[in-house]
């Protein structure tokens, strides 16, 4: 894509406040993007420490380090922190940095609302984390907070509910901003079907968010009412139904898992063509596949509840619906592979993470198809097989996508090339330790080890020890990433405007680092 625009407009009016006030009051999409990314990295480390405590406890059978109540709080909070604190804000950070630059817009549509969407997150995170210290401790009924447990719990549950309300509001505002920016602020000549894939996946993700986040807000509100205002939405004694909670929750929850993977699809669809030096294979089929995945994701929720009690007709409907999603997902994997086919590939860190993503996400996709089969799901429900499945799609899927994007765009963000050697170390350590941690959990699950239990039978000991070693290795490897980012911010080789030979989208026409204000005069897309 070729673009014409003014380089380096001098900004005499650049008199924004400095210090803390700059970050509190900023309306600049790049500042806000950076804050989102740092926030999510902090949450990633926080959730990671919880995960490592869980793995430390599970290193050996028996109870060694934490008591069962605290263990339950850890599994619950690890899930909530990673989903709402780490993965989702990271993608919004990418959206903030990249979408305006990729569509040739000067900033996000609603700059002040953008600031507010971000600053809602730290109080919400604080609510979640301080709930560990209130009487009764943090919420401990699993991140899906099924009643009746969640109705009976202490005030930690209320704090989690409020945190979800706030984070939901933040996501909805962020999505409204992103949709408006993409629909209204594209540079002249950039039609919808000329947009980079990353922008497309975020447009669809944002629509999913405004579709399902309000439903989550609704269902946790019902929970709050059941807890404090004597309603009986989920209380069987009063004529309510706890299974109904699961239906409404997963009506949100299943689209949510695609909210956490579609932007990664977008990032990988940018990175692979750049390093294969070929345009993305089947661009329009990619767009339609993404949209089909989003639509299908709204009608398959009950595959999370095959054991909750459902007529066979229902089970069959949700089973076939779920398996149908493998078709558009297969289209995407095929297109990524076809993009690499006969490309002049080089293997810099972003490409390594992208290929790692395609490889490992596909494994997670396959185990997903296995879980979709009703008779098998009844066996593996709530076992470590499910844990292995969703960590393959969330860690080696979403998170590897985030890493690929971070390495890919770091030169544009900081103006310096990152340390390629350290980056490669980060990739290979993550790759090895990730598989060490989670591959063996498939075996544990198939052998019947249940999730969310701090102790286990002796025959599971070896695989658990391996998994724990892997987890600590994986956790420590992420410090390499921190080192790479800090090093790239402080200095390093000066990055050219377009450090990647095969990259083609608009942001690479800007100098590196990207100027504080970019595309104030829209570029013209030829």
């Amino acid at each position, binding site marked *: 894509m070729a673009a014409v625009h003014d380089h380096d407009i001098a900004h005499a009016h650049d008199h924004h406040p400095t210090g803390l006030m700059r970050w509190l009051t900023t309306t600049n999409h790049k500042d806000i993007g950076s804050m989102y990314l740092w926030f999510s990295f902090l949450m990633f480390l926080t959730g990671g420490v919880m995960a490592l405590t869980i793995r430390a406890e599970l290193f050996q059978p028996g109870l060694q380090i934490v008591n069962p109540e605290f263990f339950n709080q850890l599994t619950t909070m690890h899930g909530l922190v990673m989903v709402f604190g780490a993965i989702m804000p990271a993608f919004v950070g990418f959206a903030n940095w990249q979408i305006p630059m990729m569509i040739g817009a000067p900033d996000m549509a609603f700059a002040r609302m953008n600031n507010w969407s971000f600053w809602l997150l730290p109080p919400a995170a604080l609510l979640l984390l301080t709930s560990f210290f209130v009487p009764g401790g943090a919420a401990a009924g699993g991140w899906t907070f099924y009643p009746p447990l969640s109705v009976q719990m202490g005030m930690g549950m209320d704090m989690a509910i409020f945190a979800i309300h706030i984070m939901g509001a933040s996501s909805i505002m962020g999505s409204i901003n992103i*949709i408006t920016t993409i629909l209204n*602020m594209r540079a002249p000549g950039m039609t919808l079907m000329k947009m980079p894939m990353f922008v497309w996946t975020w447009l669809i993700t944002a629509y999913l968010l405004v579709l*399902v986040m*309000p439903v989550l*807000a*609704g269902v946790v509100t019902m929970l709050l009412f059941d807890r404090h205002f004597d*309603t*009986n939405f989920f209380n069987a004694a*009063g*004529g309510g139904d706890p299974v109904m909670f699961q239906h409404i929750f997963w009506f949100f929850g299943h689209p949510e898992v695609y909210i956490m993977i579609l932007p990664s699809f977008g990032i990988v669809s940018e990175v692979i063509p750049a390093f294969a030096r070929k345009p993305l294979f089947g661009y329009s089929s990619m767009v339609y596949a993404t949209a089909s995945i989003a639509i299908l994701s709204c009608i398959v929720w009950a595959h999370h509840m095959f054991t909750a009690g459902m007529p066979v007709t229902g089970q069959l409907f949700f089973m076939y619906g779920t398996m149908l999603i493998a078709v558009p997902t297969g289209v995407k994997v095929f297109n990524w592979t076809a993009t690499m086919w006969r490309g002049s590939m080089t293997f810099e860190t972003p490409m390594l993470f992208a290929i790692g993503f395609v490889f490992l996400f596909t494994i997670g996709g396959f185990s997903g198809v296995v879980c979709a089969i009703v008779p098998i799901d009844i066996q593996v429900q709530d076992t470590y097989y499910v844990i292995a499945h969703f960590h393959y799609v969330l860690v080696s899927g979403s998170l590897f996508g985030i890493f690929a994007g971070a390495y890919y765009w770091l030169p544009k963000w900081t103006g310096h090339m990152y340390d390629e050697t350290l980056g490669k170390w980060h990739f290979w350590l993550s790759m090895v330790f990730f598989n060490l941690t989670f591959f063996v959990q498939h075996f544990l699950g198939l052998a019947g080890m249940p999730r969310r239990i701090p102790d286990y039978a002796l025959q599971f000991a070896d695989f658990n020890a391996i998994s724990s070693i892997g987890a600590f290795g994986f956790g420590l490897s992420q410090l390499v990433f921190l080192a790479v980012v800090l090093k790239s911010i402080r200095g390093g080789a000066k990055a050219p405007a377009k450090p990647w030979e095969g990259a083609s989208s608009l942001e690479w026409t800007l100098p590196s680092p990207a100027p504080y204000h970019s595309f104030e005069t829209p570029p013209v897309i030829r």
Partner: protein
Amino acid sequence: MNQIQSNALVMRKLLVFTVVMFGFGFALVPFYEKICEVTGLNNLLQADALEASVEVDTGRWVTVQLDANIRNLPWTFKPLESSVRVHPGELIQVMYEVRNTSDREISGQAIPSYSPQLLGKYLKKLECFCFSKQVLKPNEIRQMPVQFMIEPDFPGDYGTVTISYTFFEIGNSVADTGSDVEKS
């Protein structure tokens, strides 16, 4: 229309959509109950119809244990016999007795539970105190029948089954959920 106006228009539409979806979450509650009613799932409060001719399987016995529980209620609740022996296909009536030990009027609703769970499919109840709420005056004692039949095609590998009832207090708030309890 300039940029700011058209942005505001998109935002308004999306905000309306968000509010509608928030309402949709709540609309799922009556929708769920309607689905359960139409498909006959979760049908705890309606009597089953008795088919014209059911052949009694006199070749085997099933022992039905009767269980009674109360949950946070100042009541006592017990079956008059702790178990009965029935032939599959045989219609039988058992009695439960409930007593309000407090000095206020209390409404309670009994929720059934079966063991094995499978029994629910084969148990036909013609009459049960659990089909409606029970209102007991202070110190009132009431004997209440359950009339039921286990269908003859109940699997033969179960010699003993349990029918259990738990009484819960229902307050005024029950109506909030639009639940069937109040309607019946």
